[in-house]
């Protein structure tokens, strides 16, 4: 380790001036002198008189010089020369001269960050990009839906082209393996709904309507919505990550060169599996939600299971149940298509897999909630 401090001093000479450097001029020491040296040679008008004739930069007292020190020596020489001085370097040994020469060759300024333009330009650019991205994403999603439907159409015409093993394996992963979490969460939501409902409705002496509240809101809206959100978080993201990492390792390209259609091999089985399984999960969620409500009403309101079932039966017509269930395949389609599409859009890096997975979950949940709202409007309009 070199010790001591880097120093410099200027002096006037008969012909002009001299800058004497001493001590270690390395990257660790030069920082404090940077602005002072920069000021000496800042511009022709500011440059001291004695720095305009013959100027000698003397390095004989420099103990160590590295590329950073050499850069500063070179820059000072360059700036003084531009200000009209006749600059010479003295007292440098062969290595030091070599480093200064290297610094001269490497005098090639470059930007540190990409040019972003002015704030207004940046705002306009961002807005433009956002609009273009939105449009292209909608188009890409419709495109993917079309491709998947084409594959499914083929399967219907020729059932043997269905990749059954893959579909069944996906059904296990997105359906069966999701049962515990879907069941637990919807049970808890049914229970909380009943508990809150009971405490409010009690004020009107209408606590028995807690059953209606739980049954209708669970069957019609909440069960399918909660299930779809869980599945978007757990399976939609998995689709993106799986397909995305295959994309990174060029497996998708390999598949194409082997004459396999990635849509048929990877996307269609996932979409089919989810479209089949989400209604099943929704049904389980319906039952568990009602069960949760039943347990709470039994303990909080002393409503026996028989009465509870009677009340449910009275409150719920078959259409309440079907309104919830019929939404499931559509939501499943949206989740699976978004998951697979985001996976296909992964580019090159591992970073991109993470980015796409996040975006997949956000978009899937967004789409699920928007679709659910559209369904609500639709069912109200048709009076079902």
């Amino acid at each position, binding site marked *: 380790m070199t010790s001591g401090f880097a120093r410099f001093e200027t002096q006037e000479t008969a012909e002009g001036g001299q800058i004497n450097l001493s001590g270690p001029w390395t990257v660790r020491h030069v920082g404090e002198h940077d602005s002072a040296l920069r000021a000496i040679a800042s511009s022709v008008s500011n440059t001291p008189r004695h720095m305009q004739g013959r100027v000698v930069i003397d390095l004989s007292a420099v103990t160590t010089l590295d590329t950073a020190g050499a850069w500063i020596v070179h820059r000072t020489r360059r700036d003084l020369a531009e200000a009209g001085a006749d600059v010479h370097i003295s007292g440098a040994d062969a290595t030091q001269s070599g480093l200064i020469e290297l610094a001269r060759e490497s005098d090639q300024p470059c930007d540190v960050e990409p040019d972003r333009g002015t704030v207004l330009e940046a705002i306009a650019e961002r807005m433009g990009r956002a609009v273009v991205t939105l449009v292209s994403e909608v188009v890409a999603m419709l495109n993917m839906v079309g491709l998947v439907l084409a594959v499914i159409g083929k399967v219907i015409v020729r059932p043997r082209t269905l990749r059954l093993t893959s579909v069944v394996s996906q059904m296990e992963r997105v359906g069966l393996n999701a049962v515990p979490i879907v069941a637990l969460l919807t049970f808890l939501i049914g229970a909380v709904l009943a508990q809150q409902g009971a405490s409010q409705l009690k004020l009107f002496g209408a606590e028995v309507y807690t059953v209606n509240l739980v049954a209708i809101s669970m069957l019609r809206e909440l069960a399918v919505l909660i299930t779809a959100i869980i599945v978007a978080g757990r399976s939609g993201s998995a689709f993106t990550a799986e397909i995305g990492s295959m994309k990174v390792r060029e497996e998708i390209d390999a598949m194409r060169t082997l004459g396999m259609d990635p849509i048929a091999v990877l996307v269609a089985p996932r979409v089919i599996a989810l479209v089949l399984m989400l209604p099943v999960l929704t049904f389980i969620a319906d039952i568990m939600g009602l069960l949760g409500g039943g347990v709470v009403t039994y303990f909080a309101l002393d409503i026996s299971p028989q009465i509870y079932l009677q009340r449910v039966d009275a409150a719920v017509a078959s259409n309440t149940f079907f309104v919830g269930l019929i939404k499931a395949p559509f939501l499943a389609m949206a989740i699976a298509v978004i998951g697979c599409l985001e996976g296909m859009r992964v580019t090159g*890096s591992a970073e991109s897999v993470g980015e796409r997975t996040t975006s997949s979950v956000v978009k899937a949940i967004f789409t699920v909630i928007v679709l659910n709202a559209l369904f609500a409007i639709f069912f109200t309009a048709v009076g079902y």
Partner: protein
Amino acid sequence: MAEHENIIQVRNLRNQFGSQVIHDQLGLDVRKGEVLGVVGGSGTGKSVLLRTIVGLKRPDAGTVRVFGQDVASLEGEARKAVEQRWGVAFQDGALFSALTVAQNVQVPMREHLNLPQKLMDELAAEKIAMVGLPPSAGPKHPSELSGGMRKRAALARALALDPEIVFLDEPTAGLDPIGAADYDALIRQLKDALGLTVFMVTHDLDSLYAICDRVAVLAERRVMVIGPISEVSTHSDAWIQEYFQGPRSRAAAGAVARATS
């Protein structure tokens, strides 16, 4: 005085993963100012050796001394001080993907030193030019660069604090022959200009012949032989014979002979 000459000293090193022993009783000296090439078959632990020397992996036994200090026992400020005296360029660059190339080069300066931003910008530009990248590479993100440019950018970052030792992991892997030859010339040039010691894990026979002062062959869990390539290539071990006397090696040796004659 041997310590001053040997900038890296590895003694009785043992590395193992589970029951699989990678290195056993491994000894290696790297001399100040030389370019050492480390070769060996797949799985002989070349990269593990590099990672052990720079302290990314703790040795299971033995000592690694760099600048005369035991790397594994260094902590806190002492460790930081030593880390500033070496630079590591990983195989695929390992550049921080959220930063531009110029910002990547500034990371070590920003972390360890207190330099004015203007000077850091200039120094980053200098390093980028030194490793032969065009100025347009400075504001780009690593993902926008080719593999060869990423390797150069990684070297620029490794050189940011003017280290005394540079570790290179497979510096020419994945480069085309012209790019690889350029990179070799760059290493040699920087080594001469900056007085660097270079520790290089490589499979590139051309690099071995073109720029390495000495070559160490890893085999049978230790450094089987170390010395100038002319000595190493005549060693009697079967793997070494096959490695250095195979058709590709003869071509590389021939090319060097033609170039120097």
